[in-house]
């Protein structure tokens, strides 16, 4: 009998398969089904600070537009005593989900201002989140801000959030940093309990007929996993924080790869959108089967087995791998 259990962020999980932050979990029913089909934990969808700001400003604009201009219509819409903001709805959903399922529930927030991060972090802690995942996805489009400054701000934010809450803190990173190991070390020192690699960069698509640029959400593919495996394998053993792989995890094999690279958990979302929530059950079953076939009793023996420090020849993770790949490609010509 294999033991699928693992610990992540100090939480005891029944397996390493965690549902990544996805709008699917905006429905409590879906979260219940995720648990029923074997999810070890669920990260709720991200609460975006900008969205709250935009909503607040939009509400203000919509309530004031056209008002106090014309004697017969001093306002156009009824005004209420109070408005339920998205963060209230988010927290209410969190409480509801916590009451519904036994598996750990992680909140996810994406902030912009230091005060925004800290406030929401405390709110989700009070609402009963088992842990918090900081989604640090942002776009550096300002040419006057150097990369170092961006890293500094990020580390400072993590430090401040860490100090403001007691629950475990995961930090979800984007791959677009120059020195990921150095940043990881800084975040480790700032108190991050886990590093989640990597966020996916949502690229808009071009409509060449209408000469327009359209937002497009593409689901991840298994080949995106390679980038994640690469960096987890490099970081494994060099940081205190747990590692989690996300982006491109679609199959039990992908989970195994993630753990062999050094991750505690593998996070999955696109597969559930495409194949349904019950895919979790299939992955769970296949994972058990694979471990039995390969005689792994638990993940402890497997974890990090293919990390940079564990393999006899580390060159595939280094520049040599690049050269090797290129030359083998040339040879095949």
């Amino acid at each position: 009998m294999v033991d699928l259990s693992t610990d992540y962020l100090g939480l005891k999980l029944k397996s390493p398969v965690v549902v990544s932050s996805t709008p699917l979990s905006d429905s409590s029913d879906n979260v219940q089904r995720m648990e029923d089909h074997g999810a070890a934990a669920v990260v709720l969808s991200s609460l975006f600070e900008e969205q709250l700001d935009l909503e607040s400003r939009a509400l203000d604009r919509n309530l004031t537009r056209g008002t106090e201009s014309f004697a017969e219509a001093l306002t156009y819409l009824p005004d209420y005593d109070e408005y339920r903001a998205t963060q209230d709805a988010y927290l209410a959903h969190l409480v509801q989900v916590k009451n519904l399922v036994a598996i750990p529930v992680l909140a996810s927030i994406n902030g912009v201002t230091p005060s925004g991060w800290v406030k929401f972090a405390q709110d989700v802690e009070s609402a009963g989140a088992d842990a918090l995942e900081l989604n640090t996805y942002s776009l550096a489009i300002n040419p006057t801000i150097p990369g170092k400054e961006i890293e500094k701000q990020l580390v400072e934010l993590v430090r401040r959030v860490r100090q403001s809450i007691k629950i475990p803190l995961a930090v979800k990173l984007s791959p677009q940093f120059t020195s990921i190991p150095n940043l990881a070390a800084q975040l480790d020192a700032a108190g991050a309990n886990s590093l989640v690699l990597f966020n996916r960069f949502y690229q808009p698509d071009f409509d060449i007929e209408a000469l327009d640029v359209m937002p497009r959400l593409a689901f991840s593919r298994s080949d995106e996993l390679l980038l994640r495996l690469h960096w987890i394998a490099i970081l494994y053993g060099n940081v205190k924080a747990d590692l989690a792989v996300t982006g491109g995890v679609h199959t039990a094999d992908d989970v195994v790869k993630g753990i062999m690279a050094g991750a505690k958990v593998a996070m999955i979302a696109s597969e559930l959108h495409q194949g349904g929530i019950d895919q979790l059950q299939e992955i769970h079953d296949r994972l058990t089967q694979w471990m039995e076939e390969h005689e792994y009793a638990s993940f402890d023996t497997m974890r990090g087995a293919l990390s940079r420090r564990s393999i006899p020849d580390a060159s595939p993770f280094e520049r040599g791998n690049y050269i090797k790949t290129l030359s083998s490609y040339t040879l095949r010509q």
Partner: protein
Amino acid sequence: MNNRETVILDANEAVASVAYRLSEVVAIYPITPSSPMAEWADQWKEEGKPNIWGSLPVVAELQSEGGAAGALHGALQAGAQSTTFTCSQGLLLMIPNMYKIAGELTSGVMHVTARALATHALSIFGDHSDVMSCRTTGYAMLCSNSVQEAADMALIAHVASLETRIPFLHFFDGFRTSHEVNKIIPITDEDIRAVLDDKFVIEARERALSPDRPILRGTAQNPDVFFQAREAANVYYNAAPDIVQNVMDRFAKQTGRQYKSFDYFGAPDAERVIILMGSSAGAAEEAITYLMSQGEKVGVLKVRLFRPWDISHFLRALPKTVSKISVLDRTKDPGCVGEPLYQDVMTAVSEGLSEGTHPVIVGGRYGLSSKEFTPAMVVGVFEELKKFKPKNHFTVGIEDDVTFTSLPYDADFSTEDPKTIRALFYGLGSDGTVGANKNSIKIIGQQTDNYAQGYFVYDSKKSGSITTSHLRFGPKPISSTYLITKANFVACHQFSFLEKVDVLECAAPGAVFLLNSHYGPEEVWNHLPLKTQKTIIDKKLQFYVIDGYLVAGKTGMGNRINTIMQTCFFAISGVLPRDEAIEHIKKAIKKTYGKRGDAVVAKNFAAVDGALAELHQVKVPTAADASFDIQPAISSDAPEFVRNVLGTIAAGHGDSLPVSALPAGGTFPTGTAQYEKRNIAQEIPVWDQDLCIQCGKCVMVCPHAVIRSKVFDPSYAKLAPATLKAVKPKWKGMENDLYTLQVAPEDCTGCRLCVEVCPAKSKSEPKHKALNMAPQVPLRETERENWKFFESLPTVNRDVLNHNQVKDVQLLDPLFEFSGACSGCGETPYVKLLTQLFGDRLYIANATGCSSIYGGNLPTTPYTVNKQGRGPTWSNSLFEDNAEFGMGMRLAVDQQDTFAKNMLTRMLPVIGEELGGAILAADQSTEPGINAQRERIAKLKGELSKIDSQDARNLASAADALVRKSVWILGGDGWAYDIGFGGLDHVLASGQNINVLVLDTEVYSNTGGQMSKSTPRGAVAKFAAGGKQNSKKDLAMEAVSYGSVYVARVAMGANDTHTIKAFQEAEAHNGPSIIIAYSHCIAHGYDITYGLDQQKAAVQSGYWPLMRYNPSLRDTGKNPFQLDSKAPSIPFKEYAYHEARYTMLVRSHPEMAKDLLREAQDDVERNWRVYSARAAMPGRGETPNVAPPEKEGAVTPLGQGGKA
């Protein structure tokens, strides 16, 4: 003031608060200026606020005031404490029920914001014409004179009604009192409890209908007993005045505020007394206080209980010493002996004073439609009374140079208390000035011992409107019920106002002047008009500038400079210490905006903090040296009447026009909006002629007809300004001409709809289109010249154009231009299209509402004429009767046509068969046919002018009727779906050749977004704050049910060609037709720059299926029902959730929003099944009870058990 807590509010809120707490049923219907009372009641109900007996009142909107009165009557009969709010024509609709309610001796109160009645013109402003029409209904009538009194009298009215069994009409002056913000002591629940004895409530309940103790009320009576039974009510009326006084006395015991049914103020030994009712009492008291200080023996008798009029109470209140009385009526009763109050006083005096010498009594009119009534006028009236034979039936406040009724007065006389700070603010509707001032009043009124008053004057335009805020603060209660004319503080929040408004006209010497200016303290002087410079120097004003928009931009406030200007006001007015003021402003921001989210509070805080750094005092030079001055509002090339009369109104000096300047009967010329250059757009569209594909879409959607195209002969190009752009036209047969697209730079409102709709993008930089917005100021001069040239170009020959094609139709002259509608209005493009297609033979009957306001509000009007002098003729009767009004026009047109034909037939031997016969047999089904007929008629008139006979003169006067006319009935959904529906339905069933255009915004837009039966399920609206629970009425299908009515549902933004086709088919249909036009509206809660996208989304979602039902297709064996849009391709949510009217419900009632969204989606799908099944019927396919043939997977109509 005693130690009781005070509040700052207007009379509407104060009265509604009392009425709501004393009611179990509130029947409502919107009408200005009473609507806010109904809105408050609806909001409190939504918030779960109980009445005085602990239950939640029912608040129900009816389809009209007539409906509200019926519901009120029913609720009272069935034993519920009930109320309603109304005024003006709405009150008139209640009169039939008022007779019933009073005749049945039923307790119940209605609260009325007294307003002018529509006579020669509509007016939304205050006078007593409406309440005076109710004198004979049997209602008791109680008048209050101020915000405080309105709150107090509301309670007194409810209690007195219960105790007297007589229904009460409590009234106060519309706008002056209803909308004046003042510091008052509110009526608490304890006050109500102390004055109200529930015994009378129980008695009222016991008198009500109940099957448990059945009664019958409302019999028909015969000559034998009706009279006696009517007289049986006398005892109640006889007892009422004493009961009312008793309630007033009990009220005084509880609150310390003593009222009398006739209240006297002034010298106890007064010789001259004026008698009046309403807010004018404030001005009268001020004048009398002054005159008494000068030793004059004068006084005012304020009538509170107008009905039942009690002679003994009246005479007791009148000083015995009085020898001359002037009775002032705020109403006009044409052809009467004297106005109502005058007549009552005359009768009361002659009946009551049986002995001794009677005083001399004269009567006069004042203050119609909120005309200012000032202490100066009161002094004028008292001066007149000094004369041996004072003028009777006079007017005061106007100059009557026709029948010479007016009294002279010294306009400069002022009684303003020097301790009162008077501040005047000129703002733009959209910049938040009024809202900020309302907050300032609250800050000063509530955080200091000062009293505070605010009154706000709005523009009649809905775009680029100027607001004027009149604020008074001081240590004594403020009862000045007139506008400020001597201000200690003047703020101009928009630099561009200086060009056209003399904002310093009312500045007192030494006043502070605050100007929002992008020019700094060093350079601003050189940009001021000469008169402004002179005033600053002559009146020794302290002059400050702030770059409000700079601060607003930096702090994310956009175009809202309210907080910034408010901060500057406090910083330099000295009303409060600066730091203290800023602390209070921030508190007020938190209170006002806190519920909208942290980001909004944060940006306002930033605006406060950023304001002072940009505030600078200007060192005023010693001499004025500007080379330009304030410009007249109307251009100098306008016709004399437009220049002198309309121009005076446009400049804000309409009060100075004498009676002789104004046409009797309310008739005005059309085509006057072109002379009022408003220059309100910050940016205007600029044409890139190389990219343009000449599709005409921009011209079609422009709500203000400011972007137009023409094709012209190249020979004209020689005369064109150098900057005029023109290219080769993309029309067959016009290749040798030139095409130009021109913007009227000074009329554009900058709405951007044209840019949004433009399909032509640059291939290398797609954000650059064939139309792009650019700042107006640098373009103004050149584009003005280009526009002038453009206007001088001949119009394209209509006969060579295809009137079914957008591209061609947009070369037709619009005969509706430059209206004051909202920037980006969704209604006006349809109205404009109507005038392009049929304008030169168009009658318009217009229901009251947005379209009558932008269509016919002075000073200038947008309907205009073509080069031949023909154009739409337009009239507005009322709100409820518009369909019938239009049908009357049709009947008259047809009758005159018949008359002319008869006359012509009779005169054929004289006129000759060739011409006469051709006229009688003319085919006018096409425009060339109509034009040919016009030529024949011209010839006919020429012939007739040579004949000297009565028949010839008669035929000549009626001959134009022989040219085919088009009668259109226009109105919004409030009219078509609710108040006018009965009439509309009748007219559609009449078979008459009339056309109806419903400008469907899905709410009562003009009165501020109240729910109509067109409001969609799930949207919030006033009176549906919890989201509309049921689906929108399908007016199209109701009309289709007749089978003989042409019906179309259109959305220009989704399919403009379809819209044109529908207009053409409707007009061609020889019978009734109705077009229901999706009109995006500011009341939907989004930036209507994107209105056309929303129209498209409404159609794509299936919410607004485009359809036409053309009965004439049946003649050719075809199905008359045509579905013109594709099956839904996006969910309803994707359309709806771009609009705050839907998303607000998510924020306020999330669960309800979810349920209603699901049901709304079901509505869409269900309707689509019905529509598509109907459209799929084969051939004539009109046998309604036969289902279409079942196909595998086909949709099945409702009721056939199908499911999509």
